[in-house]
C-alpha cells in the first residue's frame, strides 16, 4: 500500500471519527442551537409548564407549526416564559390560545394552539396573552382528594 493512500485513509478515518463525536454532541446530545429555515419567535407565559421540554413541538389542529426554543423562569411575573420558533408559513391571530397538552396518558408534552378571531396577526417577539398551564397529575389528585374531603365535611 502506498504511503500517501494510507495517509489519506487514516486522515479520513480520523475526520469521520471526530465528525461522529461532533454529531453525538450536537445532534444527539443537547449542545444544540436549533433553527428552522424561516421562523419568527413568539413567547408565552405559563403558570406551570409541567414536563414541557425545549424542542417540544408546537401544534395547531395536530399539525406541527413550530418548536419550543427556550424555557425560562421570569422573576418579574413569577411564571415560566416559553419561547417558540414558529414556521413563517403559518400566521396566527393575536388572540390565539396556547395550552400545554400531553400526547397520550404518559406521552410527551407539547403546546397546542387554538386559533382566535382577531384580525391582527402575531408577529416577531409578540407575546401570547391567553395561556393554559399543563395538567399536573399530583395537583389534580390533590384537588380531587380535597374536594372529596370537603364533600364529606359538608355532610
Amino acid at each position, binding site marked *: 500500500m502506498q504511503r500517501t493512500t494510507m495517509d489519506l485513509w487514516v486522515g479520513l478515518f480520523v475526520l469521520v471519527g471526530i465528525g461522529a463525536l461532533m*454529531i453525538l454532541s450536537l445532534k*444527539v446530545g443537547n449542545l444544540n442551537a436549533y433553527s428552522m429555515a424561516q421562523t419568527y419567535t413568539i413567547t408565552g407565559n405559563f403558570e406551570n409548564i409541567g414536563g414541557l421540554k425545549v424542542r417540544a413541538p408546537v401544534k395547531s389542529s395536530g399539525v406541527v407549526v413550530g418548536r419550543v426554543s427556550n424555557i425560562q423562569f421570569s422573576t418579574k411575573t413569577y411564571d415560566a416564559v416559553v419561547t417558540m420558533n414558529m414556521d413563517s408559513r403559518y400566521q396566527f391571530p393575536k388572540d390565539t390560545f396556547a395550552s400545554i397538552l400531553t400526547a397520550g396518558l404518559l406521552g410527551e408534552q407539547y403546546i397546542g394552539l387554538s386559533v382566535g378571531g382577531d384580525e391582527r396577526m402575531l408577529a416577531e417577539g409578540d407575546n401570547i396573552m391567553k395561556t393554559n398551564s399543563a395538567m399536573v397529575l399530583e395537583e389534580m389528585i390533590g384537588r380531587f382528594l380535597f374536594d372529596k374531603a370537603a364533600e364529606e365535611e359538608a355532610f
Partner: protein
Amino acid sequence: MLNRIVANIQDIGHRVIDSVWRLGNASRFFILVLLKSGTCLRRFSLVIRELYYTGVLSLIIIIVSGLFVGMVLGLQGYETLQKYGSESAVGTLVALSLVRELGPVVSALLFASRAGSAITAEIGLMKATEQLSAMGMMAVDPIARVVAPRFWAGVISMPLLAAMFSVMGVFGGYLVTVVFIGVDAGSFWSQMQGAVDFRFDIINGFIKSCFFGVAITAIAVYEGYDAPPTAEGVSGATTRTVVTSSLVILGLDFILTAFMFRGIS
C-alpha cells in the same frame, strides 16, 4: 485419597501462582510499552500505518453493525413503547442505550475480535519467524518499534470507532422508527436531546471507550509478544486475546458504569 486431595490443592495453588505471574508479567510489559512509547510518538508515521490496519480496516464492521443494532433497537423499542402510547420516546431509548452502553461495549467487542486478534497474530508471527529477535539483533527495540505503535493506534481508534458506532446506531433507529414506521421526527429528536446529557452520557461513553481501547490493545500486544513461537502458540494466543478482552470489557464496563452513573437516574 489424601494424596488426591493434596494433588488437587496443589493444582489450585499452581493455577493461582501461574495467574499472578502472568498478571505481573503483563503489567510489567504494559509499563515497558508506555516507557518506550517516545520513539513512536516522535515518529508518528509508525502509528499512522497501524491506524490504517486497526482503525480504517475495522470501519466496515463497525458501521454495518452499528446500523443494524440501532435498527433493531428502534424496532424493539417501538413495539414495546407503543403499548404505552409513548412511541415518541423511542429516540431516547435508542440514543441512551447506544451512547451509554451499546456503543462503547459492542464496538469494543467487535474491535477485540477484528483488530485485537489481528494484532496478536501479527506480533506472534513476527516472534515465531524470529523477526523480533532479528530486530533486537539490529539494535532496534521491538517493543518501541513494533509493539508501541500498535498499542497507540488501538488506543486512538477505539473511541473514534465507538462514536461512529453510536452515530450509525442512532441513524438506524431513526431510519426504522421515523422513516419506516412514521414516528414524528421532531419528537424523536427532541425527546432524545432532552434525555441525552452531554456530560453524563456522551463524555462518560467516550471515557468508557478510551478505557476499553487501552485494555484491548494492551491484552492483544501482550498475548502476541508472550505467545510461544509456534503455530499452535500463536493461534492459542489469538483466541486468548478475544476471550480475555471480551471478559475484561464486560467487567470493566460494570465497574465504570457503577462509578459513573451512581446516583444519576
